[in-house]
């Protein structure tokens, strides 16, 4: 048998599973059942009757909800197929969802989180019956303290954005405690911090002041100085920002805020490249949060469940949402003491946060230890800069700001030249990347960097993976110059072709549910 030639790294023969599944309602067949539910025992029925006649007549549901009726194998088949049509991190080279820190989620951690001893715990069980999970949460908190330099962590926030919101709530409480809640109504952030760093504080009533970057891409210190005042409640910022640029003067920023009585909150969703290298405390922050579902490897679950682990200094502890988890030397317990503080912020999420996510993060940290976390940071940054250097060799790819220096964790590139040369936009490239089984993310809106492309490899891909990604990008760029039509009309090997997005913004056209689609389609038809 002759050797089968497979030189190219570019996965030109890729095709995503495409099942062309109907919408689940279309699978309905009257009379089919997906699962049978327990019936009350005869003895029980004998005593209480049908159970529903007590419902006041005007509250009885008279017509069944219009749910589909589908047998069990068909429900399973449907969702199995949809899962194959989803490009999870388990199946692709996750480099293209820059700023999302999508990395490897070890399967062992999933297995642990599926144990009955966590899935079947009720949050209100007596403390004596939940010592195991409390121990995990307590210890993970202690790890977080060490990793960040903060003094106390809360896992209540169900994501990074909610953690930002919680940081803003703490700011509000802190200033109220100081009697300055009315005067301090501004929060400063930067344009390359995450939109939630602006939006969440705004919900909490703050006016947002953006700092723009200087020429090198660092937050402009002069502008910052001008912005800080007695109106400043605080500063919430990512570092590195989404550009991958690390602000080396960060301590000067936090010092300045402090000197004006404000608080500093560190958005550490991008902490992956900094583990064991530097911390929130040394950089002068009063608060920070980590996304356990990002840097700490717990899977993203299509967008949660997740945990934004928020840490604060001792001084701010009393504002944290209750309860905290404590250890009295003998047993772990839920500490509600802080509730008594009149300025405590209350709660941000029911109970104590998403416990299985904390468990997975615990297991991940234990599998790595301090040396492993440091390795994570080093390799994440190595991967990022390897990608960076290789891509910068491509003529039409550029990355604004500091040149010749390393970027931490991610880089926001620009394909402006490509667009100028060929008319192929970053959005076009995005679609085309799917034809090779890859994610590709542009950037948050608005596009401060034109035709942006944001890549964040993390420590998860191998050099081979990076090279595949790079070669694929180059391949597409070559296409852009030679046969742009194929990109303009992409994707070709995905589940669906280009979507007519116009309808999604038209109230008369959009179809948010199957029933609404049917109504509107009828109206049209």
């Amino acid at each position: 048998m002759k050797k089968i030639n497979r030189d190219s790294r570019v996965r030109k023969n890729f095709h995503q599973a495409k099942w062309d599944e109907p919408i689940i309602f279309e699978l309905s067949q009257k009379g089919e059942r997906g699962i049978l539910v327990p019936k009350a025992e005869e003895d029980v029925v004998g005593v209480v009757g049908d159970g529903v006649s007590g419902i006041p007549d005007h509250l009885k549901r008279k017509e069944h909800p219009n749910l589909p009726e589908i047998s069990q194998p068909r429900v399973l088949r449907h969702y199995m197929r949809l899962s194959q049509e989803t490009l999870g991190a388990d199946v692709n080279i996750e480099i293209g969802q820059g700023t999302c820190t999508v990395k490897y989620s070890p399967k062992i951690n999933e297995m642990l989180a599926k144990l009955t001893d966590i899935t079947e715990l009720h949050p209100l069980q007596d403390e004596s019956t939940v010592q195991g999970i409390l121990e995990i949460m307590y210890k993970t908190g202690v790890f977080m303290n060490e990793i960040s330099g903060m003094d106390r962590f809360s896992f209540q926030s169900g994501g990074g954005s909610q953690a930002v919101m919680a940081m803003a709530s703490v700011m509000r409480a802190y200033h109220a405690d100081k009697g300055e809640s009315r005067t301090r109504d501004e929060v400063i952030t930067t344009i390359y911090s995450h939109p939630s760093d602006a939006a969440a504080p705004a919900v909490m009533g703050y006016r947002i002041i953006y700092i723009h970057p200087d020429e090198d891409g660092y937050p402009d210190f002069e502008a910052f100085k001008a912005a800080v005042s007695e109106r400043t409640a605080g500063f919430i910022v990512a570092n590195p920002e989404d550009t991958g640029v690390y602000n080396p003067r960060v301590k000067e920023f936090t010092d300045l805020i402090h000197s004006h009585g404000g608080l500093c909150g560190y958005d550490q969703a991008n902490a992956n490249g900094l583990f064991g290298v530097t911390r929130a405390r040394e950089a002068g922050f009063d608060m920070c949060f980590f996304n356990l579902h990002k840097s700490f490897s717990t899977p993203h679950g299509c967008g949660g469940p997740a945990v934004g682990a928020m840490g604060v200094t001792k001084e701010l502890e009393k504002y944290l949402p209750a309860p905290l988890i404590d250890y009295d030397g003998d047993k772990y317990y839920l500490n509600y003491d802080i509730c008594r503080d009149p300025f405590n912020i209350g709660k941000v999420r029911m109970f104590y946060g998403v416990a299985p996510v904390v468990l997975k993060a615990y297991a991940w940290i234990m599998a790595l230890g301090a040396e492993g976390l440091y390795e994570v940071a080093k390799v994440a940054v190595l991967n990022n800069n390897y990608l960076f250097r290789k891509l910068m060799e491509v003529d039409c790819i550029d990355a604004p700001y500091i040149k010749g220096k390393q970027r931490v964790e991610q880089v926001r590139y620009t394909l402006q030249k490509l667009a100028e040369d060929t008319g192929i936009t970053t959005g076009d490239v995005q679609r085309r990347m799917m034809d090779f089984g890859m994610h590709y993310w542009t950037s948050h809106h608005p596009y401060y960097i034109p035709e942006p492309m944001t890549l964040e490899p993390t420590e998860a891909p191998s050099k081979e993976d990076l090279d595949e990604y790079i070669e694929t990008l180059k391949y597409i760029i070559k296409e852009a110059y030679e046969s742009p039509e194929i990109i303009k009309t992409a994707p070709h090997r995905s589940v669906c072709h280009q979507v007519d997005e116009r309808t999604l913004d038209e109230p008369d056209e959009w179809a948010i549910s199957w029933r609404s689609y049917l109504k509107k389609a009828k109206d049209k038809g």
Partner: protein
Amino acid sequence: MAIKGFKNHPYIPNSVPEVQKEMLKAIGLNNLEELHEEVPEAIKLKDNMKLPEAIPSEYELRRHVEEILKKNINCKDNLNFLGAGCWQHYVPAICDEINSRGEFLTAYGGEPYNDFGRFQALFEYESLVGELVDMDVVNVPTMDWGQAAATSIRMASRITGRKEALVPKSMDKDRFLIMKNYCAPDIQLIQVDYEKETGQLNLEDLKGKISEKTAAAYFENPSFLGFIEENGRQISDLAHRFSALSVVGVDPITLGVLKPPSQYGADIICGDLQPLGIHMNYGGGQSGFIATRDEEKYVMEFPSRIFGMAPTGVEGEYGFGDVAFDRTSFGHHREHGKEYVGTQTALWGITAGVYLALMGPKGMEEIGQTIMQKSQYAVMRLNQIAGVEGSFFNSVNFKEFVVDFNKTGKTVKEINKKLLQKNIFGGKDLSSNFPELGQCALYCVTEIHLKTDIDRLAAALEEVLNV
């Protein structure tokens, strides 16, 4: 350098020193330390962090974690009657199967071209919950009922331009605290009292508090204390009379037998998906949903992502995408969009969709009926115990009910402690959050309780109470 890395780690492909050398060379660096030259020495760590020794072998790691978790005792091996915002329902195997599928589990924010299945599954979840609540619009889930309720009120506030919301005094204190924090500083939550006898919202008090300033009248069905709120129509009408919105929080598992709030005047419906196929997870299974009519004024106020269907360039193909994306904080307007959005609980949304697809209309009706029969049986059975009132309130209950221990001479705390010794988790002690009730506990009975379980509880209580 005092700081060491962990080489050749299974989770980190490029932790191989030879590969690192090759890559460093490619980027013109000499060593890994140079990668962080931008971080000033002053704020750099000088030593490895103080964390426990790594447990690098998967076997030992597993054993380590399992040994800790074994210190828990759970609701499967024991008999649980706790509810109060997190409920033990049966989770069909397929729900776990689907949400464990690596593709769903590890997907995140891809485009519809990457994550078509994620978009379709969430569109279907929206559609299924839409049928359950009889509304046309449902969001990609938010954090939990509390967050959903808070956002519903913020939406109502934006729609009406008003800054007060009425909420029931009988609601869960923690949920109230979430809403309060989220609505601060600008929206004020005003509590409305309940009827002493029935627990129903006190309509007189409501009338006294509702006004032209009211953005929303928020109530729950069933109430936190478990009974069916019967005056939904009156409450909604009253709200509408003041041009306020009627916002109703609902436990979706009731909706096979109970009318959806949309049918008694609700403008916005919210609630928790956890009962629909999601494990309790020590409180990690919560997932909030919000539903409205398909009207622009509502849709444009959602902060959440909403997935919609759309045609593609190819005839016969379904496509999906974000509806009115620009209203969110991910859109061009950032903090001028609606509140904020971020990672929330999408996987639970998909799971709830799977659950509803399995259950169908019949399953939802039957489970509602079974639960009501079993909880009524429990109330009656507990009533037979001298000194115990199976239900404090004179209202129809769904799955939860307030058991009155006032006449037993024992505190709920004492009773629960004794029950625990018999491997029974008694109902939530209401004495601190509802001092007016004295020694009462909120019990939860669902389809997972067999008659023998309820009888076992009753027998245990009889023993504990020495009757």
